[in-house]
Each structure stands twice: as C-alpha cells, then as structure tokens.
C-alpha cells in the first residue's frame, strides 16, 4: 500500500534540540529559590533503621530540612518488596534512607556526613540459591520470596537439592509458579536428540545515561515535577498518587529521557522522583535532586538473573518437540519480575515447541532492585537456547538455518501457555532474508576454520517479544488555522515513537507533516492515557489510537461539510487539506474552514459532549480542559485478544582467538519482522542499539556483589562492562520483512526488545561454534571463561553463581 507517511523517514520534532543540546532534561531546569537535595543511603545490605539523629545537620547554616520514610509513610511502610520512596527497612546497599536539602550540594553532603543513623543489622544473602538452601539467610524480613496476594513467604530446599541443582540436575522441589501444555512425556519419547543441563544468566543494571534525577516545586496548590521516564501519561497518573496529590493538581514534565531501558516505564519503579516533590512540599522551596551514577546503579534497577535447568527434545526431522524448564529468578532486594515465565513463553513461540512445561520460583537476594529490562526473560533465554539448537542440528545432521526455519513461527500459529494466536508471523521470511543478505550458504563453510590461534565462528539468533497492546485513548485536534495537533501520551525515551506513532493520524488526514504538531512532553498539555512505553508496544498500540482518533475527526469533518454544503458525509472525500464532494472537487471546504465551523457548532465537535464513556479518566480530564478549543477527534481503542509478535533475526561471523579469549565480530546483520515499517530510520536505530545491548549480554555485562559485605562491585560504566564503540562492529547491517499485520490499521507491530535477544543468541552461538560446539550455558561468556575452557580449567568456582563471576 502506498502511504504518505508510513514507511517514510522524517525528522522528529525533538531532534534539533538533542543535536544542539538545547532540549532540557530534568537536571537542566532551575527556579528561583531552588535548593539541592542529596541522599543518605543504606551502607548495609539488610537492616532496620533504629534511630536517626540529624540534629547537627539541621542546625547547620544552609540546611533547610530532611525527609525520611516516616514523613513519606506516616502509617508505616508496607511489607512488600516494592521499591520505596525512602525506607527504614533497607534490603540492599545504597537504598535511600533520607534526603537532605541545602543551599548547595556540597553543603548537603557535608551535612549528611554529620547524621548518625543507628541500624539493626539483619542477615543478608547475595546468591538466591544460598537463601533457598535450608538454613540459608533470607533477603526479606520474614522470608525470601513474595507470593502475590499473600505477602512475604519462605521457600526452602534441602541442601542436597540445592547442590544437585547447582550440579545441573532437575530440581524436584515444588515450584512457586508453573504452566504447561502438550504431552511432555510423549514429546520427549518422540525425540531423537535431547539436551539437558543447568544454566545461568547474569542480572545486570540498566545504567541509563541520564540518571533518575528529578526537580519539583509547588505553586498554587499544584505540584510540578520534572522527572525522567520512558512513559508519559501512565507515569504522570501514577506519580500523582505516589506524591499524594490529585491528578488534576499534578504536572509531570519530561520532554526527553536519556534512556529508559525498561525500569522507567512505570511509576512504581521510579518512586525516588517523589523525593524532591515531598521535600519541596515540606520545606516550601523548589528542590533539585541530582542522582549520582552509583545511586542510579542501586535504585535504577537490574535485570533478573536466572539459575536454571533446561531439557529440550528434538525429533529426527529437527522439530523442537519438548521443552522442560525450571528457573530460580533473582528478585534482588527490591522489586522482582516475571522474566522466567516469559523465557519459556519466548521459546514456545519462537520455535513452536509442541509440548512445554515451565516451573519457576523467585527468590530474594540483597542486591540491586530488579525489574523489567529490555526483553525481560525473552532476552536472557535467547543466548541459552541458540547454542542448544545448534547442538541439536549438529547431532541430527541438519543445517543450522534449516532447523530454525522448520521450527519458525508463521501465520496461523499460536504460542505460550494460553496458546494465544499470533496476529501474523513471517519468521521464515525473516530467516531467509537474513540468510540471503548475510550469504549464509557461502559463508557456512568457514565455520570453525582455524588460522593460527584464531578460529571462525558463525551464529544465527532469533528474538521475540509480545509487541502491541490495545484499549488506549487517542486525542487529535484540527486547529482553526487548519493545522493538526496530535496529542501523544507516549514518552520520549529516545526511540521517537511519540512522534512516529502520530504519523498514523497524519496519514488518515493526508496531512503534510510540516502542518502537524505533536503535543507531548508535559501532562498539562492535555494528553491521552496510553500504555507505558514498555514491552515494545508503542508502535502497535498508539498507531491504533491515533488512527482511530483521526478517523473520528475525519468523520466529524465530513459531517460538518455535508451539513453545510449538502449531501451525505459519504459523498465526500479529502485531500490537499480540503474535504470535497467526490463528484465535484470544487464543492468543498478547507481544513481550516471546517475547524472554524466546528468551533461554531461546539458540542461533540469540540469535546464538550459525546466524549467516549469508556475513555480513561485521565484522558477525560484532558478532553475537558481542551473542550471548546478546536475541532476534536476522540477515540477509545477496542481491546484485541491476539498476540502481535515482534521478531528479529541476526546472523554474525566472529573470529575468536583461543589464546586470549577475545573475539572480533567480523560481520553482523539483523532483520526485523514487525509488520509494516512505520519509521525506517528509527527501526534501523532500534536494531543497532539492540545489537550493542545484545553484545553486552552475551559478552561483557556483569553484576557483582561482595558476599562478605554485601556491597556492589560494579556500580559504574567501567566495572559493569557495558560494551563500548570499539567492542561493537563498525557496521551492523539491517533489513526488514515489511509485511502488514491485519490487526493494526497501518499494518505495524513493535520490535524494540527482540533486536537485543537475536544478537545475543547469534553471538553466543558463534562463540560456541568457534569452540567446536562447546556450550557454556551462561550469559555472559567472558574472556576468562573462554581461556579456562581452552586450557581445560574448570571455570565454575561456584556453579550457577549469581551476582558473582560466572553469574
């Protein structure tokens, strides 16, 4: 289909500000009388605050006050492991205990140094399996796990069971969570090759470039909070609740965000933004709270690490018949996640596994706060499953590309525990496109070729994430000058989806892009409620809402023209910013004329009546504040039931030096399968950005905590080993299948997350290939692990270690 905007590159409205540095992040704002907050954080991994003596600090010149957990939670903190604004019950080193405001940061730091906090030390644990073992320490008060609707509980295995699990054997203990489909026993019986073993993946921090600094002030009873989130309206609504102010009296300002990474999607994962708001309320001054890199590490969240066991059966023809997986996922000291179940779901969908059983239990460790990070679960399992697939291919004598093609998801397929239909799927096409662009047939003969100490390795990886939601709201306005305003509740996390999804509305109205204003970035710009910008959903979700709102606007426009010029609305069509009679182009009105007429008519045309009943209250508030200002299109997206998948495929070739454990990525190509492409440049950037992250997952990134003190050892970019420019290929090829999805009006699905998983899977497979098919069963695979393997040294100081090396 020929589109005016969809599938075309454009310049998003915030690009100039980012290139010139003029765009403002939370730390860039100032206000008269602004003071600075600093945090006193827990030095202990698990403790209880007994008393706080801040008398000396409060008496210091230039100090304005402190905020403690008692101020935030006058009725006491709940006993959930959710991240708190401030806490008297820290469960990880670095958790904020109190904030102090002073005339400048230096004074604040000096004052904090005088504060005496008395703690009661509590037992702590760094590795979930150490806590799971009978008699092991618990990460929470009263237990080591959190059961939904029941609270903190204790989960214990015998020490023999834990030792057996660490040794790579199937756990026998009852899991906290499980699901299955198909006849697992029969599927394994039908398998010609079965792989079984333990595995571990590292949980590691988000490390967004912009820390979660926040600035707040109060004016005329309203709270203004400059914060940093990857979402806009869902966070605005939720933060109002955390700050404790009615949503109509709360303004969330977030024009741009320096990285979301998953942990800034929802208010309960960034509650620290409430600190300057509450402190400002208490001392009646604007408060800036600049968060340090180390604080960002601590409260910024980390991916869940896995300690797992996997058994996977393949039929003689290569079909993945059975998957049985048991995962202990690391909940850290705060937070948690459903990563483990998503990992099994991912395999079920990517490889259309005939029978699957998932079992999982989440256990606390007194380490960094856990939550969703790009592809939570799907991307951890991607580097684990890919070498197993290669092993099966080798054992069964099948080409590595072919085994992936024959298991690949396609139209009509279902997946996951509920056997949910996919809205559409073209994974075989993506694999074929990648193979062609990469030259798989020509290159595969180079696999395992040696040149001195160097050896070539080839890898294919696949990534998946559920990539679309529904049921959200759309608001567009046609202004009296004929310009189109698209109100976007989407956060600006750097993907430009807040703007690219707006193009669906411009497409409906055939509106030149320079005549479109994307209204976003502040909740007082009256934005519609939408889904948080997580789960790769924005493109699917918000092209639906903007398309629908524009359709509503167009219908109203035709009604107005038909009423004024005669005939029925169906007699009219639109183009060149006019609505005109289909039979006579000269009979019509310009968009500006229609908008002005709409203002005269008022009522449903201007949002003063007939607002969709089922719109979210936040959206209704926005509509009420916009009512009467322009001709308005409103839309409540109906819910859909099927699963819109985002798929990517990556092919890579590496040269690994067996003497140093280092490798060079010689080539890498990633192909997206995400329906119709909305913004090619944005998609290419997603694929390349995901590649860097995937390289980090497979090769470098780590999350280290000292078992002796419970203190983190990988708090910054240096020690956490995020990949750098010189660790990634100079060129990463990109491409896309570009076939439309039937459940989106412009054919689009999301794709942000899987691009990382596919790269991670391909890279780990290539490392395994270069080492004659050795499977490390771990992510990352670091240089020392490769050296140890080549030298025949057991690299597992602690098998399945978590928050440690080899974790």
């Amino acid at each position, binding site marked *: 289909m020929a589109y005016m905007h969809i599938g075309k590159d454009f310049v998003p409205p915030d690009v100039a500000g980012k290139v010139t540095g003029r765009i403002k992040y939370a730390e860039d704002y100032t206000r008269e009388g602004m003071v600075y907050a600093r945090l006193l*954080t827990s030095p202990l991994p698990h403790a209880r605050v007994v008393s706080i003596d801040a008398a000396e600090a409060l008496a210091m010149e230039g100090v304005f006050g402190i905020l403690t957990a008692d101020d935030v939670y006058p009725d006491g903190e709940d006993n959930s492991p959710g991240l708190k604004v401030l806490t008297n019950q820290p469960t990880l080193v670095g958790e904020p205990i109190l904030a102090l405001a002073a005339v400048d940061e*230096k004074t604040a730091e000096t004052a904090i140094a005088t504060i005496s906090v008395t703690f009661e030390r509590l037992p702590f644990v760094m590795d979930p399996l150490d806590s799971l073992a009978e008699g092991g320490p618990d990460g929470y008060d009263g237990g080591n796990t959190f059961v939904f609707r029941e609270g903190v509980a204790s989960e214990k295995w015998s020490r023999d069971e834990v030792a057996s699990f660490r040794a790579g054997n199937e756990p026998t203990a009852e899991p906290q969570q499980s699901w299955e489909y198909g006849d697992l026993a029969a599927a394994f019986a039908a398998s010609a090759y079965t792989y079984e073993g333990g595995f571990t993946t590292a949980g590691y921090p988000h490390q967004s470039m912009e820390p979660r600094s926040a600035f707040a002030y109060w004016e005329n009873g309203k709270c203004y909070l400059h914060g940093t989130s990857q979402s806009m309206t869902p966070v605005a609504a939720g933060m109002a609740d955390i700050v404790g102010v009615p949503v109509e009296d709360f303004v969330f300002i977030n024009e741009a965000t320096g990285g979301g990474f998953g942990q800034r999607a929802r208010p309960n994962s960034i509650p620290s933004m409430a600190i300057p708001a509450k402190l400002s309320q208490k001392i009646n001054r604007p408060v800036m709270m600049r968060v340090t890199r180390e604080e960002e590490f601590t409260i910024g969240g980390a991916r869940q690490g896995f300690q797992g066991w996997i058994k996977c059966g393949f039929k003689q023809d290569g079909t993945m018949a059975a998957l049985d997986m048991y995962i202990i996922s690391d909940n850290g000291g705060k937070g948690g996640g459903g990563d483990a179940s998503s990992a099994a779901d991912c395999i079920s969908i990517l490889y259309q596994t005939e029978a699957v059983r998932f079992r999982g239990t989440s256990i606390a460790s007194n380490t960094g706060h856990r939550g969703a990070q790009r592809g939570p679960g799907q991307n951890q399992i991607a580097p684990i499953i890919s070498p197993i697939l290669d092993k099966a291919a080798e054992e069964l004598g099948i080409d590595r590309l072919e085994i992936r093609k024959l298991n690949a998801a396609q139209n009509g397929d279902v997946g996951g525990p509920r056997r949910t239909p996919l809205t559409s799927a073209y994974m075989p096409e993506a694999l074929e496109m990648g193979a062609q662009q990469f030259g798989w047939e020509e290159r595969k003969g180079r696999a395992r070729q040696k040149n001195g100490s160097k050896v070539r390795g080839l890898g294919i990886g696949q990534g998946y994430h559920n990539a679309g939601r529904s049921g959200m709201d759309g608001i567009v306005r046609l202004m009296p000058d004929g310009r189109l305003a698209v109100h976007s509740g989407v956060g600006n996390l750097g993907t430009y989806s807040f703007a690219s999804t707006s193009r669906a509305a411009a497409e409906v109205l055939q509106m030149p892009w320079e005549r479109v204003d994307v209204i976003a970035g502040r909740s007082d710009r009256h934005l519609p409620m939408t889904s948080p910008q997580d789960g790769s959903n924005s493109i699917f979700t918000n092209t639906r809402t903007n398309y629908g709102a524009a359709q509503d606007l167009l219908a109203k426009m035709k009604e107005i023209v038909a009423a004024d010029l005669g005939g029925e609305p169906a007699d009219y069509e639109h183009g060149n910013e006019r609505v005109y009679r289909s039979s006579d182009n000269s009979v019509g009105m310009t968009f500006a004329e229609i908008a002005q007429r709409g203002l005269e008519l008022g009522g449903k045309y201007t949002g003063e009546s007939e607002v969709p009943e089922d719109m979210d209250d936040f959206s209704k508030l926005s509509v009420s504040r916009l009512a009467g200002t322009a001709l308005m299109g409103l839309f409540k997206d109906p819910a859909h039931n099927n699963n819109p998948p985002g798929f990517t495929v990556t092919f890579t070739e590496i040269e690994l030096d067996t*003497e*140093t454990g280092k490798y060079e990525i010689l080539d890498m190509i990633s192909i997206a399968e995400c329906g119709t492409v909305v913004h090619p440049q944005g998609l290419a950037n997603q694929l390349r950005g995901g590649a860097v992250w995937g390289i980090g997952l497979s090769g470098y990134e780590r999350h280290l905590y000292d078992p002796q003190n419970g203190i983190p050892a990988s*708090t910054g970019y240096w020690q956490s080993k995020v990949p750098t*420019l010189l660790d990634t290929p100079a060129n990463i090829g990109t491409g896309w299948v570009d076939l439309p999805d039937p459940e989106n009006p412009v054919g689009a699905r999301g794709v942000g997350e899987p691009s990382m998983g596919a790269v991670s899977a391909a890279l780990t497979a290539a490392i395994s290939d270069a080492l004659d098919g050795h499977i490390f069963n771990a992510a990352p695979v670091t240089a*020392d692990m490769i050296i140890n393997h080549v030298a025949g040294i057991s690299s597992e100081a602690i098998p399945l270690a978590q928050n440690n090396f080899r974790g």
Partner: protein
Amino acid sequence: MVATSHDVMPDIELYQPTDEANALALANTLGSAGWLLAGGQDTYGWLKDRNKTPSAMIELTQIDAWKGVKEIADGIEIGAVTTLTEIANNPLVQSRYGLLAKAASVVASPQIRNVGTLGGNLVQDARCWYYRRGLDCYRAGGNICYADSPEGLNREHALFGASRCVAVSPSDTAPALVALDATMVVSSEGGQRLIPAQDFFVGPARDIVNMTVLNEGEILTAVRIPSTWANAEFYFEKVADRNVWDFALVNVAAAIKVSGGSITDARIVCGAVECIPRRLEAVENAIRGQQRSEQLADQVAAIATDGARPLNYNHFKIPLMENLVKRAIRG
C-alpha cells in the same frame, strides 16, 4: 560503613605552579597534604567519593619543563606530564621505542589518553575495587584483605607476590618501560634521584601503602629510555575485557634482540599479575641464545608462571600469561 555516593568534591586548596622550583617547593611544604594532580584520571574518583581527603592539590600540567619528548646523549627523555596520546603519536618514540608507543596507545580510552599523562599512568594507585571503594583493607591502613579471602571477588587480582594485599600493577606503560630498561627521574627540593624502572615499583611486602618508591615531597618528573634497546624487536599486547577503557587482565611487554634468527638478548615483563611489573628473567635466560621459534615459545612459556598462586577467580591468568609470553617470543 561505606555506602553513600557523594559525587561531590570537598573544598580543596588548588596550587598551579608554572615552574619546577615552585612545584617542588610546594610538594615539600605540603607533604602528604598536597595531592599531585596531572591528568586527573587517578584523582577525581578518589576525591568525589571522598575516600581520599587531601587539603590541597598541586596541579603539574602548567610546567612546560616536564612535558614533551627530547633526545638526550643516550636515548630519549620524556617529561612525566606528557600525555599518553602525545607519546603514542611521537615520531621519535614510534621509530625507536615502538614498544612504549604501543603500550601508551592502548591505555584506557582515547579520551583518557588525551588528558592522562605518562607519570600518572606509572604512579597511579592500586585499582583493587575493595580498596577504591574505601574499605579498611591493609593498603588503606586496616588489617584485612577482602580480595584474598575465601569469598573475595578477585578475578582481576595477583598471581604473584601476595603479601597482605593482592592488588596488581594496573599500568600498561610500566611493563614497557621496565622492558626498555628505563630510568625514572625523581625530583625534590633536595635534588634528583635516578631510579631504574625495575626498582621504581614496590610490592606490598616492602610497602603496603605505596606502589612506588616516591617519598613525600618527591615528584616523578621524567623518564629516560637508554639507547640499549632502541629498535629491538618489540612485542606488546594487552588483554582486557573490553577493547577500550579497561585495565589489563594481563599485558606483556617484550624487547628482544635477534641476530641470524637467534635471540641474543631479551627483556620480558608482564603487568597485572603482581603488584609490580613482573620481569620474567627465567624466561629471558631460557631463550637467550636460542633460535626464535614457535617451538621455543611453547617450550618456555610455562616457566613464566612458575610459582603462580591463583586465587578463587583468576586461574585463567595462568594460561593467559603463558599464551602472551608465547606470542611475545614468537613475535
């Protein structure tokens, strides 16, 4: 208890001398209270974390006499405040002492090399994360080593020379300068000391607090490289986790003289395996007079790690060190 992330430097008196005499006088007067500042890459982390709290800083970057590369009667002299980028790109260093040029070119990152100096790279403090974190370890005046313990996170720590501390020499240029038999020029108000590079660095058995022989009031002002090893056959390789920024897991610097395929003399030094650059004299002795070959490399590599005492997580350094020594001998 160490947890609060300060990220704010306290007030510090800043001195910016523009000539040698003033700098040396300040160093003498201020003693341990006067923190020497050049590129700042071993400074700001300490100060912003408030784990070191000097009352004054003496900035050395305005003293032109301590910058640049010049020819001297026997070799070259490099001012200690010369940046690593300048050294890596200097034609004299590149043409005669390519070993040092290569070592300087792989330190940290391009940005750090643009401001980081040779002197700073040589005298930087231990990078053991426990120590940097401000814990009360032996090196910090306490009575424990957190890294050399049953649960210590010690993947990057020492194979050799443990003595209450298992931190390693973090420098890339130090092994190169030991291999080149360089001399450190150490100045103070009292005069000048010339110290062989090999003797400049000290391990924890001799000094648990300092990693060099520099005394209070002394400043490393230059490095002299004799002509002895100019234009020898050089090999430098650094293996680090990432290709930028990281300190070496192991590095090797070798200067080898070859005549008719036979090794007439050699100096081979490894970094990141001991608190000081570890000269491999047994390997040097084993290859002197031998034909340079892959076979020779394979035969002698194990000598390099003789006496290694691996910790929980650094066993890999043994084969890595042997492999790098092999590569150095193979050339």
